[in-house]
């Protein structure tokens, strides 16, 4: 049997993303794309009073981009039972950016959790780093707008 190309966690999120959904309504619809490689995704979020109630996504993108987006939503937003503030979510996003830059602290890594840590291995492939970051950059832009409008 051939060796799996990505880690099990990345493949699981890429092939069976839990948060893949285009909801009938969403208060925020944020689009992100990498022109050079053609990856594109759309984030859908329900935001009320600065709190993110729910999030999902659809994408036309490589496994790294899809997995990264799914893991991001998993970590940043928990549907139904737990609401997070846009500011809290932004801190998580910025911790991930530091992870990909190689400047993450131990506290950053702990806050991101074990499964997202698997994405750190992508950092050494310059052509794939932007795939991993796509969803997070898209989320960051959306969150900054939410915070600005509060």
């Amino acid at each position: 049997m051939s060796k799996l190309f990505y880690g099990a966690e990345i493949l699981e999120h890429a092939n069976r993303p839990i948060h893949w959904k285009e909801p009938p309504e969403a208060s925020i619809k944020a689009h992100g794309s990498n022109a050079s490689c053609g990856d594109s995704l759309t984030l859908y979020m329900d935001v009320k009073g600065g709190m993110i109630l729910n999030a999902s996504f659809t994408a036309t993108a490589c496994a790294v981009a899809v997995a990264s987006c799914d893991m991001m939503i998993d970590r940043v937003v928990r549907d139904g039972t737990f609401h997070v503030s846009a500011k809290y979510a932004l801190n998580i996003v910025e911790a991930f950016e530091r992870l990909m830059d190689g400047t993450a602290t131990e506290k950053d890594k702990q806050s991101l959790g074990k499964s997202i840590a698997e994405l750190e291995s992508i950092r050494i492939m310059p052509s794939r780093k932007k795939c991993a970051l796509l969803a997070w950059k898209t989320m960051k832009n959306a969150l900054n707008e939410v915070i600005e409008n509060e």
Partner: protein
Amino acid sequence: MRFDTFGAVRDQFPILKNCIYLDNAATQMRPEFVLKDVHDFYRHENANPYRGMYKLSENATETCDSARIAVAKKIGAESSSQIVFTRGATESLNMIACAEGEISFYGKEEWAISIDNHHSALLPFVERADANNIRVNKIIPNKNGEITPKALKKALTDKTTLVVIPHVSNVSGFPNDIEAIADIVHQIPHCALVVDACQSVGHLPIDVQEMGADYLVFSGHKIGAPMGIGVLYMSKACQDYCFPYQLGGEMVDEVHWDNFHVTDAPLKFEAGTPNMGGIVGLASAIDFRSAVGESRIRLLERELMKPLLSGLRAIPGIKVIGSPLPEFHTGIVSFVVDGVHPHDVAKILDSDNICVRAGYHCAQPYLEHLNYNGCVRASVAYYNTHEEIEKFLESMDAVRERMGLFE
């Protein structure tokens, strides 16, 4: 120098020891033969052509003129004066778009552009057309990638003055019948045909007079010349009515403060110091291919395409874009893998030291028309081997499994 054996040809490309290179549609490798000639020019003969009164410059002029003759012969041009050296096909196409756009009768003309053109053959014309209020009609190839007479005629009217098509699509690999296309185009008075030959110049015989092309462009690096040199072939009529794209040294006979006189073609269109290394390399690449044998090159590539295409089509989960027949894939096979993004396919192959291209291939409108979000492209050249094709197919066979997708 002789290249009687395949080994002797392959030895000209030491870089091929490091990987299995199947991205020849992007650029071909440069043989040692060409690199030596380029190096020798700069080391022993370096001078500006057409300017100096000393031997070194006169020799450079002769080198440049000889290269022009070699290119003219390669593409069947009537005269070497119809060969303009440019930085590449992109610059050639921009030159055409600018010149043709300048002479348009504002709002009264139409251009027809095939949607499977490379962005370099699309954007300059779409932009110029927009700026000059020229209506653009799309030519839509069929599912094999062929520009059929029916598809072409649908996009033409009696107001069409320019038609832009690829000789061979860089996605489907389909080789269009330029002669038949030109016959239809030239039924419209004053309508010119632009042919992008980037994907054909290295694989098919080209005769611009037989084809009936008014403009033909290609980049030298597609046939083993250095990057940064290209060709713009222009019919004599086009050379007469086109104004130069760039102004500067060399393209003028006389310059005064308040007026200047443009010189004759081809220098009319070659402002500035020419890329002599590129020009020497281009002539050398043509020489090299001639020594290998152009017919032999075509045969080698045809023989590689058969197992490549049939092998890919036999792998479950792979859909090939374009015709099912190898003769309609000019060195190129583009495909998608069910459930696996093209970038992931390319990275998996890269981990096996195999180089292929993934994405939109600078043909995004075409791929969107075909309803694909990118694809993978494998493209062969005469120096590839059957063993390399086998290794590629082996790797492809394992792609879905390596992505955790089990049948």
